[in-house]
């Protein structure tokens, strides 16, 4: 009986440890990114691209990704004005190591993304997150600074 109990705890501990060692995944991103100064009358879209390094020790290197943001409302990404409750909407799109961006809908996993084989040592960027602000979002809101915090979630598939 005592041996069985010990066996149980040992087995459980080893299984958990094995799982942690095996399933390592992560994402490295730079610091804050900026869309810069936005000028009224420029109705082109404003974009900024964040280069990411996503790694996984899983052999296939496949993962899914989703994003949420601090100031979102009704499943829309928003940047908040520094002094008031005024917001600008923006969109996100994501590209893994294959060419082409896909829309990253709010809090919705984009599946079947691949790292291109990068393991825990992230040597080069292998994904991009594009933040897009359409020009007409710039009118109708106060001048000044806007910010948001995007949380990017990566999970192995």
């Amino acid at each position, binding site marked *: 009986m005592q041996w069985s109990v010990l066996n*149980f705890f040992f087995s*459980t501990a080893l*299984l958990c440890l094995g*799982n942690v060692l095996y399933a390592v995944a992560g994402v490295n991103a730079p610091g804050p990114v*900026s*869309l810069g*100064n936005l000028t009224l009358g420029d109705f082109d879209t404003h974009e900024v691209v964040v280069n990411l390094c996503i790694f996984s020790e899983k052999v296939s290197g496949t993962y899914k990704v989703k994003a949420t943001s601090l100031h979102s409302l009704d499943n829309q990404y928003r940047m908040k004005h520094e002094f008031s409750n005024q917001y600008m909407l923006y969109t996100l799109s994501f590209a893994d190591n294959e060419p082409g961006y896909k829309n990253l809908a709010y809090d919705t996993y984009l599946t079947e993304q691949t790292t291109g084989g990068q393991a825990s040592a992230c040597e080069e960027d292998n994904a991009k997150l594009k933040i897009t602000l359409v020009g007409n979002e710039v009118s109708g809101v106060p*001048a000044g600074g806007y910010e948001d915090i995007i949380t990017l979630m990566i*999970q192995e598939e």
Partner: protein
Amino acid sequence: MKHNFTKFFISMVTFGVLGLSANIAAAADEDIAVTSTIESVVEVSTIVDLVFGSLSTGAAADATGLACLYSNDGETGAYQITFSSANANAGVFRMKGVTAETAFLPYTLFWDDQVGGAAYSASLVSGVALAAQAIGAIPSAYPCVVNNAIVKANISDSAADGLQAQAYTDTITMVVAAS
């Protein structure tokens, strides 16, 4: 019997933990701060000429014109506005005679930002800013397309006394800026 049952139970629990562990995929979160800055804009897109038409000596007259302003200063589109007369004298707005250029017809100017209903300002002084004006809400379109202010000029009933009959004109320079 009891001992075997315990071993069986422990084995099943262990198996359950194994199955659970195998289904937990690794995950990672990363926060990315995104910022931008909208530059300040305060400008007039439209204003119409103020036309009095023909005047009769001894009769007062008004002329009004609508204006369209865009301001993204603060949440209310605040601004200050300054009118300057090309023929001003000591802050008084004046029209100059087209034929006899030494003759001047004084007038007063008023501004209504239309916030809180129609209410004209006190008479303006040429070259002096009228502060604390606002659109009320920042226009959703840029440049401004919906008129949101009124300028009014007034010629008093005694202003034309002693002046010769002719056309009088003035050019007003209007400057808007963040408040």
